[in-house]
């Protein structure tokens, strides 16, 4: 609670704001205006602040909020360089298990994306991937969201190694067909019959970004995932692969292994000798990613609509489900996870990948 913006002020009340972050007109602890002005560590996040120079005036404290949060800015984003390799990656290692979702946990991953690839990519681009660090195969303890330009599909897959094989559940949504089983994706994306690229971005906000959101319930099947294009529901995946039956099911995703999370590239290589790591970045021009959020719940359709905020990037920490927000990367200045209570998940932005104006 801030100091009132007008009217009669109490010196002890201001002292309470400074001491307890709560202005109290009935407070009685004595202090002096000079002490307050000269010894208070002023919170510059407050829209109104006093100065420390004489003469001091009570009126300088009008509207001062000692525990004001920083104002939310959406000026910058992160550009994933087309250059590949770990030297150009955007990644962090989660050693805290904060993001160690499994097949039976609910989660939501959302990101804003400005497509940079062209219609001649004819390959996939990885939006986000989390996987076991130093994995020999990409699938180890893995969750990923990719766009395959050759088929015009967003795919979300999670799974793990299972002996010499693997298990995974995968959902695929395509956007160019009006056949009944695909029309929800067609209507959600607004791409028409042409594939998604930098020259055909479909429904975007005023800055040419699309908010892509995948939600997952606690059910361990491909049907548990839903896709939203902005606030438009594409529903459960029309293309589902459930490859987790039999003995494979006894190899769940680990809740304790450290996982490497990467934005805009494929993390560890996917079994290709000599192919290297952190590839699948796109082509043409760099794809730019804005606010990324990870939640430990399946956001509802109305909650996704709230997050989309009519196309204005929302401060996710003010979202009605903010208590379930585990990661929020705004890419203002750097790749810090702004969810303070996790204290983990700061992306390192390397090489020619960089923070850019959105």
């Amino acid at each position, binding site marked *: 609670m801030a100091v009132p913006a007008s009217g009669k002020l109490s010196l002890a009340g201001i002292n309470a704001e400074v001491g307890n972050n709560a202005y109290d007109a009935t407070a009685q602890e004595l202090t002096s205006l000079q002490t307050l002005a000269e010894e208070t560590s002023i919170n510059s996040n407050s829209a109104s602040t006093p100065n420390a120079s004489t003469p001091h005036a009570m009126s300088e404290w009008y509207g001062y909020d000692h525990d004001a949060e920083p104002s939310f800015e959406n000026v910058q984003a992160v550009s994933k360089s087309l250059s590949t390799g770990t030297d150009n990656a955007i990644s962090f290692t989660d050693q805290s298990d904060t993001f160690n979702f499994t097949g039976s946990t609910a989660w939501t991953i959302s990101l804003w994306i400005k497509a940079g690839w062209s219609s001649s990519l004819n390959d996939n*681009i990885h939006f986000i991937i989390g996987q076991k660090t130093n994995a020999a195969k990409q699938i180890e303890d893995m969750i990923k969201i990719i766009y395959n330009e050759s088929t015009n599909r967003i795919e979300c897959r999670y799974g793990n190694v299972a002996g010499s094989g693997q298990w995974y559940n995968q959902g695929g949504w395509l956007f160019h067909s009006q056949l009944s089983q695909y029309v929800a994706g067609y209507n959600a994306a607004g791409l028409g019959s042409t594939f998604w690229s930098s020259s055909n971005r479909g429904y975007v906000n005023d800055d040419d970004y699309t908010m892509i959101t995948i939600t997952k319930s606690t059910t361990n099947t491909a049907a548990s995932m839903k896709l939203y294009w902005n606030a438009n529901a594409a529903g459960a995946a029309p293309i589902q692969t459930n490859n987790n039956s039999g003995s494979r099911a006894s190899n769940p995703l680990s809740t304790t292994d450290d996982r490497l999370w990467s934005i805009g590239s494929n993390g560890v290589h996917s079994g290709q000798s000599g192919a290297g790591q952190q590839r699948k970045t796109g082509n043409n021009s760099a794809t730019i990613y804005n606010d990324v959020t990870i939640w430990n719940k399946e956001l509802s359709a109305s909650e996704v609509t709230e997050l989309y905020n009519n196309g204005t990037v929302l401060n996710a920490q003010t979202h009605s489900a903010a208590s379930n927000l585990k990661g929020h990367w705004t890419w203002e200045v750097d790749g810090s996870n702004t969810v303070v209570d996790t204290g983990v998940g700061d992306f390192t932005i390397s090489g020619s990948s960089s923070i850019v104006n959105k």
Partner: protein
Amino acid sequence: MNYYIVTKEVFNTLNKENITFMRKSMNDAHRLIVTTDTVSERIRKFQNINTCSNYTFTNHSDWTGSGDGIDVDDLETNTYISEVDD
């Protein structure tokens, strides 16, 4: 599974029900396919999924615009749908 490169014309004659993966070449003249059928009229046949993938890395400019080849992962998990992947 069988791994082939075939011409577009041959591809159009194949039984799509048995094809699990298809990627058009960059010039649209060829198709890289994974199928349970045996195809005799082919440009190239690969011994296994790894040699197939490795070939696309060596000849990536024929198959992708990314500078990369087609991962084994893609060959295994992409699902060909004849009604939309024409």
